[in-house]
């Protein structure tokens, strides 16, 4: 008996988006990263091999964050105080990309400024030759104030900038248009909202080859299943040929996984939660693993060990079908 392998034939595929620009394209990055291009559900190599590996990014901040887990501070140590050092450390830890989040305030509590944003982006671009992302703190006014100068400073580097949301995308998209960047388009776990925002951004003149969808990530135990299913639905729609869903997907298991009590708190928790360090790292790794299988293309992590674990997962998934 020889069983016939059931293969799906899809009409569509995911659009390719390239991050970073080398000197050949007017940038200073040592390499570019292309995402997307899949013509099958995640990692079904027997059906249609995925042309590009997913990008594993490490998140850094413009200054030492106050609310990150102590376990992360232990790992990154002194480097957290200086974005250039931190970017270098993240590169050494094996990141494909540096994902820089700008804070709402500066270390002295005063609001963050355009000059500072500019200076930090410059520092990071000088410290690492990897492609980078720069996003704001997630408050519309401050985001606009910081991302426009950041985008100008990195003009031509094809950075990922954001975060575009329905109430706040115009300024960021304009900055991407003017300075040759890619945008992160975020909507709260809904296929239609996700398409709508892509359409709005595209209507402003930004090519679809420069939009990445952020479907919103929920952590393990705190809503992961909603994002997981929205990603599967987006990917199925993309393969069925629905053009506005054919963007690569970005997820943030680092941020979400490290925000929850399981990762943050080491004392006074149930014994069944086990060893704190292990639990915290597993929380991020298991969240990321599930999302890799739901179709994540760009995975933003916080802990270098998680990066290592997810790297061996995706390397193996991408090996040619046996």
């Amino acid at each position, binding site marked *: *008996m*020889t*069983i016939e*392998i*059931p293969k799906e034939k899809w009409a569509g595929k995911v659009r390719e988006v390239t991050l970073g620009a080398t000197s050949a394209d007017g940038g200073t990055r040592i390499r570019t990263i292309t995402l997307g291009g899949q013509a099958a559900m995640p*990692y*079904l*190599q*027997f059906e249609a091999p995925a042309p590009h590996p997913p990008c594993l990014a490490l998140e850094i901040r413009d200054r030492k964050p106050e609310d990150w887990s102590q376990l992360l501070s232990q790992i990154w140590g002194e480097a957290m105080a200086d974005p250039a050092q931190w970017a270098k450390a993240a590169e050494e830890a094996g990141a494909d990309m540096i994902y820089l989040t700008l804070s709402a305030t500066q270390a002295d509590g005063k609001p963050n400024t355009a000059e500072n944003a500019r200076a930090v982006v410059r520092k990071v671009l000088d410290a690492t030759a990897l492609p980078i992302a720069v996003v704001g703190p997630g408050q519309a006014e401050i985001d606009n104030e910081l991302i426009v100068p950041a985008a100008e400073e990195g003009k031509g580097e094809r950075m990922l900038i954001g975060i575009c949301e329905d109430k706040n995308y115009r300024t960021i998209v304009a900055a991407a248009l003017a300075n040759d960047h890619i945008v992160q388009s975020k909507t*709260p776990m809904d296929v239609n909202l996700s398409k709508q925002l892509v359409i709005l951004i595209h209507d402003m003149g930004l090519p679809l080859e420069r939009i990445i969808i952020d479907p919103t990530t929920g952590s*393990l*135990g*705190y*809503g*992961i*299943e909603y994002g*997981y*299913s929205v990603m*599967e*639905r987006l990917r*199925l729609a993309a393969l069925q040929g629905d053009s506005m869903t054919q963007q690569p997907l970005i997820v943030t298991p680092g941020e979400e996984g490290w925000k929850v*009590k*399981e990762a*943050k*708190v080491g004392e*006074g928790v*149930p*014994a*069944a*939660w*086990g*060893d*704190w360090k*292990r*639990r915290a790292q*597993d*929380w991020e*790794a*298991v969240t990321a*693993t*599930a999302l890799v*299988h*739901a179709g994540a293309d760009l995975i933003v992590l916080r802990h270098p060990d998680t990066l290592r*674990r*997810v790297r*061996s*997962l995706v390397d*193996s*998934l*991408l*090996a040619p*079908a*046996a």
Partner: protein
Amino acid sequence: MALTGLEIYKLLPKTNCKECGFPTCLAFAMKLAAKQAELSACPYVSEESKAKLEAASAPPIRLIEIAGDDGKLAVGNETVLFRHEKTFYHRPGLFLRLLDTDGPDDLKRKAAEADAYKADYVGINLTLDGFAVEAASGDPAKYAAAIAAVRSASKKPLILMASSPDLAKAGLEAAKGTRPLLHAANAANWQAMGELAKAANVPLAVRSESLDGLAELTGSLTKAGLQDLVLDPDLTGYQDSLQRLTLLRRLALKKNFRPLGFPIITFPGASGKADETVLAAEHIAKYAGFIVLEKFEPASLYALLVLRQNIYTDPQKPIQVQPGLYEINNPDTKAPVMVTTNFSITYFSVANEVEGSGWPAWLVVTDAEGMSVLTAWAAGKFDSERIAKAVKAVGIADKVGHRKVIIPGQVAVLSGELEGDLPDWQIMVGPKEAVDIGSFLKATWKN
């Protein structure tokens, strides 16, 4: 896969004799397709047609049940490839592998420790499902003793891992009174293993690296009269797992391919080629039925059990708690009053935090249709009107002497409007995250 009325009609006698109680064979076929009639109502249907119809109505992935001295587990009977298409029904069992070479005392200790494992996740009690006891010694007497030792420490279901018929026999004997899964039959021993499983009426796993090999084994065993089978595709890493598990699920659901329509057992840590926790997470998301772990590691187990819960949640119904008034730490008339939503994750984050802080408190759980604070707020299900209504409905005013109510920090914007809707109450804005409730009360609650 269910047959249509017309497909069923083709298998009926087509004589329209009416004895089934319907005017025509076609009418009867339509009722059968709608599951509003029983095939037995037609006395003339041929044996061959009967077999075809019965086979077609069986679920594409067989439901397999195993049982311990106390406690059961059922896996299989899944109907979709992606959870949003309907839901995943039967959570895969998580088992811990134990070796008979450890000796009875060690085994008892290990089994007792893992058996006692219990984690609470949003009011759901998460535990390990059972033990896979392996006859690593090769000695039937040692194996029997090991099973007895595990049974003395745990009443959970067992998987008997025995590589030869005489070990299997000793194991089944020692497991008498329970319904374990026997693992595993292969091309060399399937006849003897099949006889043992049949005699003991227990499900049997078949093991082969290839899909063809698996289908041949299940084909032979089905012919020998066994129906309760489990597939062990001998998975070792991330890629072979994803591919074979996906193909098996597709063949069962899309092709209704009976020889592979059984639940699947995996051993994510066995090959050492993958990170056990990461591969087990993959197996949970992608279609495993029984997952056997090598290590008992509470932190990782907790993460895996929560993932399993999340992936198997019905996408149509968020897990929720009953709206109403909840008492935490025996509150009295001076205890703080807090409002939250009836989404389970939200409620338990808050309730566990308050309980842990030692503060007695009243929790007013509003009916927010099972949504989190911000989701419900954005959807208009957790607005000032609803909160005011809930505060009045639960009669909290009669239970406390003060008039202060704490709202979640995430919906601080509601405080102005709430002052209007609850004129007798002082609205206090709590912290954004439940973790900070204890310190918030310490700083602000002076009663």
